[in-house]
């Protein structure tokens, strides 16, 4: 699968799960590896690509880290949107 396509699927999954459960990076990798039959490492790489450009982001709360869709505020702060 093309990286871009995989990333779309990741994003779709993240949107679906938004507000339902805090996802660890590992949860995302597991879910998508299952859904797409891609190797976990490939999913991880695609995910990292998204995080590096601010399409997704790491979050921290309650003592644990998770992956989330960034807020507008965050994107603005990072200069990714105006």
């Amino acid at each position, binding site marked *: 699968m093309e990286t871009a396509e995989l990333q779309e699927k990741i994003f779709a999954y993240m949107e679906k799960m938004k507000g339902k459960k*805090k996802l660890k990076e590992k949860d995302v990798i597991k879910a998508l590896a299952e859904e797409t039959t891609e190797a976990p490492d490939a999913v991880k790489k695609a995910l990292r690509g998204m995080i590096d450009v601010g399409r997704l982001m790491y979050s921290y709360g*309650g003592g644990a880290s998770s992956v989330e869709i960034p807020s507008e505020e965050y994107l603005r702060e990072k200069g990714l949107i105006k």
Partner: protein
Amino acid sequence: MALPKRQTDIGPPKYDQFIPPVIKKNYGKWKYHEVLTGGTMVHVAESGDTLHTVRVASPRILSTETIRDICDMAERYCEGYLRFTTRNNVEFLVSDKSKMEPLLKELKEKKYSVGGIGPRISNIVHTQGWVHCHSACTDASGMVKAIMDDVYDYFTTKELPNKVRLAVACCVNMCGAVHCSDIAVVAVHRKVPTINHELVTKVCEIPTTVASCPTSAIRPNPKEKTVTINEEKCMYCGNCFTVCPPIDIHKPDEDGVAIVVGGKIGSLRTSPKFSKLAIPFFYNEPPRWPKVVAAVRNILETYAKNAKKHERVGEWIERIGWESFFKLTGIEFTFQHIDDFTFARDTFRTSAAFKY
């Protein structure tokens, strides 16, 4: 002005750029050291080279101004080389012995405190407290200052039977190594947290909150989308607050600190030990916590008077028995001293032999 280009995953710079030539040359080939004074020592290499160290107290919270001043001195006397210790002191690494005197002189003039080497008290390991942490149940820096002012002689000159490691934890998360210190202060709550239910519903994950409680005191209330706390079971650890801040654990008038003793880290002579409860509670008395300071001094001096040379606090107590520790220090033994956590069983006395 344009920012320089960021780099990622480069890690820290390699240590070898920061070590003085005498270390580079004698790396891993030190032969012995000698403690010269309470705050100076010399390491001698197999080659015969020497490296003098001057250890200087630090409040750990350092302004850039002070760091620059320290750096200036390092440049004057140490070719710019210095280090920090694992207990947050500053160490001047003096390759040229003749620089020792002027360095010590300048330090003295500037009122830096030289000490912490040998069988003495060194800096108190501590963390953020009210200075920076949302979890803090006392202030760490202030308590440290108050205690160190009081036991100052044991940092600079006076000897003890062995090193005495002090620590302050500003909450039971214990970001220092309080759980294995000779004498330590740990801040504790004593009341069940109050719940702001509306906010809980908004900002907290109920399952995580429920799971956070070590004693299973928290039950979900799915109807109201919040939680309830079983008061009987809550031991005020504040873990729920960490995962769900609207469960407020802070009660300024009932919060305070406990004193624990007898821990150690090294494997010398006896195995590493956890610290055990000595005094269950003192109210927070900022700015100088006089009762806490007095209690620490009492334990310290009782140890100094009674321990054998090289015995750590915990080794001394284990030799004489805890019943004697309480007698000698005059500390009251209470129900709080008796363990009721997971491993309580192993702390109950299972022998007909004990001291009165």
